[in-house]
């Protein structure tokens, strides 16, 4: 099957048109507040191997995919538009925006070349929320017990946690910008909860 012949993806999670670009909540707040945007065009692959094979598989992917996957919890690797996260011993998530749909899963599968590592395409499973603005760490703290202070959660740090009852992976992209990955079925719920939490700051929705 040739991926380039696939029809266009139709996001099942979208910010309502009438909310994009409109300042909501405490609009008098003299800060940038927070902006919430969605990214529905990312590919994602989960890679699994037995823990004792971790270093070997990481090296293999570094050579063939060009990303040196982290081998410590909470680390993030970024290379060529891809981000790599260590989910558990012997388990990574690679997320990115490839040039052609489906190419990431195919490339990773090809690079692994079978046992002892395996890849699962979960590109349609994840929805990515981008939160940015001066109050973003306060909003994140409302839903998760993770310490989001810059000294504990600096740029290129990630954590798997629960937010509004949803399992999420939170990745610090910049001092005031975070990416939240959530399962597609929970994305609307999470978006609503994030928006509710952000109301006391200046809230903007961005259609991305």
């Amino acid at each position, binding site marked *: 099957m040739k991926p380039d012949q696939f029809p266009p993806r139709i996001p099942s999670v979208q910010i309502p048109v009438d909310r994009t670009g409109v300042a909501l909540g405490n609009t008098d707040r003299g800060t940038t507040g927070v902006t919430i945007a969605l990214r529905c065009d990312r590919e994602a692959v989960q890679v699994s191997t037995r823990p004792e094979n971790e270093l070997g598989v990481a090296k293999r992917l570094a050579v063939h995919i060009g990303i040196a996957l982290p081998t410590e919890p909470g680390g993030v690797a970024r290379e060529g538009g891809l981000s790599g996260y260590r989910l558990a011993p012997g388990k990574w998530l690679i997320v990115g925006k490839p040039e052609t749909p489906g190419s990431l899963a195919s490339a990773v599968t090809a690079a692994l070349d079978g046992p002892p590592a395996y890849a699962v395409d979960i590109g349609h499973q994840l929805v990515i929320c981008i939160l940015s603005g001066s109050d973003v760490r306060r909003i994140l703290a409302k839903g998760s017990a993770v310490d989001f202070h810059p000294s504990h959660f600096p740029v290129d740090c990630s954590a798997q946690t629960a937010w509004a009852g949803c399992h999420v992976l939170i990745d610090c992209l910049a001092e005031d910008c975070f990416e939240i990955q959530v399962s597609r*079925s929970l994305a609307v719920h999470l978006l609503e909860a994030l928006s*509710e939490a952000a109301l006391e700051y200046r809230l903007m929705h961005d259609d991305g």
Partner: protein
Amino acid sequence: MSSDQPRRLPAGGEIDRSATLGFRFDGKRLAGHPGDTLASALLANGIRLAGRSFKYHRPRGIMGIGPEEPNALVGLRSGACSEPNTRATMAELFDGLEAVSQNRWPTLALDVQGVNGLIAPFIPAGFYYKTFMSPDRWWTNVYEKLIRRAAGMGIASHEPDPDRYDKMNAHCDLLVVGAGPAGLAAALQGARAGARVILCDETNAFGGSLRHERETLDGAPAMEWVRNIRRELAASPDVTLLSRTTAFGYYDHNIIGLAERVSDHLPAPADWQVRQRMWVVRARHVILATGAIERPLVFPGNDRPGVMLASAVRGYINRFAVQPGRRATIFTTNDSGYATASDLARAGIEVAAIVDARENAGEAALAQTASVPVRFRSAIVETGGHLGLRQVDIQNLGADGNPSGKAERIDCDLLCLAGGWTPSVHLASQSGGRMRYDAGLQAFLPESSKQNETSVGAANGIYDLGDCLASGADAAARALSGITQSLVPVTLPTSMRESEAAPAALWEVPKAAHARSKSFVDHQDDVTADDIRLAHREGYISVEHLKRYTTLGMGTDQGRTSNVNGLAIMAAARGLDIPEVGTTTFRPPVSPVAFGAFVGAETGLHFAPIRRTPMHDWHVANGAEMVEAGLWMRPKWYVRPGESTYQAHQRETRHVREAVGLNDVSTLGKIDIQGADAAEFLNRVYTNGWKTLPIGKARYGLMLREDGLVFDDGTTSRLGETRYLMTTTTANAATVLRHLDFHLQAVWPDLDVHVASVTDQYAGMALAGPLARTVLERVADIPVDNGSFPYLGVHEGRIAGAPVILSRISFSGELAWEILAPAEYGITVWQHLMEAGAEFDIAPYGIEALANLRIEKGHVAGGELDGRTTPGDLGLGRMVSTKKDFIGRHMLNRPELQRPDREQLVGLVPVDGRTGLRGGSYLIADHAAPAPVEKLGWITSACMSPNLDHPIALALLKGGPARRGELLFALNPLENQVAEVRVTSPHFIDPEGVRLEA
């Protein structure tokens, strides 16, 4: 004095006289100023009567100035926003505030139930335990209602709370609870060391006791120092300042709960604003600077409006510029009471006398008395006045401590009580720390800490201002010594140290011969000294029993003003020292916290996460009524114009059997299983064999728990040499994944198998019905005829260009395909199938029709997979392999699980062919037999079958299959329904399975 606020002083205080706030109390229009509390505004308006007591309905006034207030409980706001039992001392005044007194009828001044005071001798503590014994049925129907009407507090609204609440997690090096002098010094030390500091205080501003007194630091008013420190803290980047925030609970791992009243001081929160916020703080170290509460004295008539704590009187004068009375008497056992005399005089209040239970006072104390007569070795022995204090009786205390000589009556409308100080050790106790009794200070103090916490200042029995500051800063420095590198001790201001004479231990004034009034210990719960002695006489001598028998310390004030006095009176009754009696256990919350703050935003539809399928919006747009199925929202039915919901699901059920339907099955759990040992793994988790499943085939599988009972079922497809795709029931998706992962990590780590949830990766849809092939042929790019695509075949293909996995499996028993498309192609594939089936009026069908179809077919689901059934019970015994091991095999062979008369799956039909059957009904042999009747089984699922045109049901029946043809009764006591039923096969339609092989 202002005419509209007759007791407001012309100058001083923290109030803003440039603005006036209007409010109502019991409907009466009154005025106050920004900075007032409801209590201070009431006093400024000359209102002393604020409430009625809990049991005796005695007139009560404002006694304290903060969270310790036992009397002035009022209802605030109205309708859905009404808030009962609010302490007037903690409610900040705002324009338009509506407050009402509680527990009175018809009015506060004329309360009919004030008659309770006359029958008080008959209703002491615990009287209801002894009085309302019989007849039994009267307890709930009569006695409880009477007691609840006669006693109690305010009434909560039954309407939904319209306000929003919020939660916040926070981490810090230092959490400082209390922003009095010790707390501020601790926070300052932390801030200057660069630590992450949270400083919270339950009032609207920082300063603690300094706001109420006229202390000086370095020769300047102490509040100037407070303002400077606050500015510095606010400018520190890692310092969080939280006013109006109560630390209500201390939990394990140094987790402290804070309740922030974000907008309680406003008429209504803004649209974007929450009313209250719950903080969950994880602190490396906690400094408890919670201060101390002044104790009242216990003597006859000590509860009349106008009897106040001396420290509160000073606070109302100095912070709120209010004159709490016109002529005052001070009754003290220590030097701190004397400071009240000079404040009273400054506020223009005549001081009639200072009554000191001691032989003498300290020099500094005496210096504040001016010309006020001091009566040493004396006590107040009785008071007078109906709705407010009018006079007090003073008598000398003899060598034996009893009143002696002639009583002297003094007219006064204000009595200031200074009975010593009780450190606020609630949080220290909750942290697990132990308390010790300090006989010199007559107080329980924190002795040891179980967690990283330190009590400082008055909370640790340190009352000198300079010592308070030092204790806060020192504690912070010690706590941070291992945390920060830049620890430089702060320089603290100095205060004048004054020597004090020792306080007297006067826990209760012995009753004078002429005294008739009660001596109240716990004003909020109407517990008297006599009640405590009654508890002692009746054997309730443990402090925990005393608390429960008398309700001592159980009110919203949590015994702040009553506990120590009560324990001392019990100690005296038992002839023990106070430490031998001990204290009760302190439990969260320290102060009342609104339920809304605990709940936060997790209400209504956000009570739990909601999961939506990729076709959710299509369902809503096409008339589906969505229903919660676990966390998922699923279409229940699609009602067409003119249809009832019943007609809708009956139509959908019929159409699938007669033509074709489409159902969203995205909610089914989907697990990707890969690895060289995947087949062996499946062989171990399923009861049936998996090693021979070829690529491109699916198989139905049954999982057991370790105990041999059925856990879950579903199909698993082999997609490649080492790759499988498992489906689970919607309800058990996460549980099955956890089950598999656990066994891979903990039981069979040698297996090369990897599992991953792909439930959200795919949109799932079931195309079912005799015309399913006709529809699929129009959109799929692969052949779907019986030869190319037989039953249980699995193939990858494309629909509308989108990649899909097609499986020929069926839950309805009809010719069917399950189609999995990557989620963001889901709506594309769904719409193509609907368009392709339009010619046949393809019916999207909901979970009600899905249930009807599976009951007609006799397929088991949640009602039958209830965690109590074995494969044999469900008619699936043939799926249990005898040639291999699997999870649950050994326990399945237990004799109990092999009994032939176990409840087993059968079908039921009503004998009359029309009586609807209900899930949960009992099956019995004779409904006319006298009780007890043997229960033979129960109905697990039931529906009206549109294809059979009569009701049907599945049931678990003792010895099930052997009883086919028997007539039984289905009894539903909840609906008062009895139906005669015939036992049948559970497979009502197409028992040979011909249709799905079509």
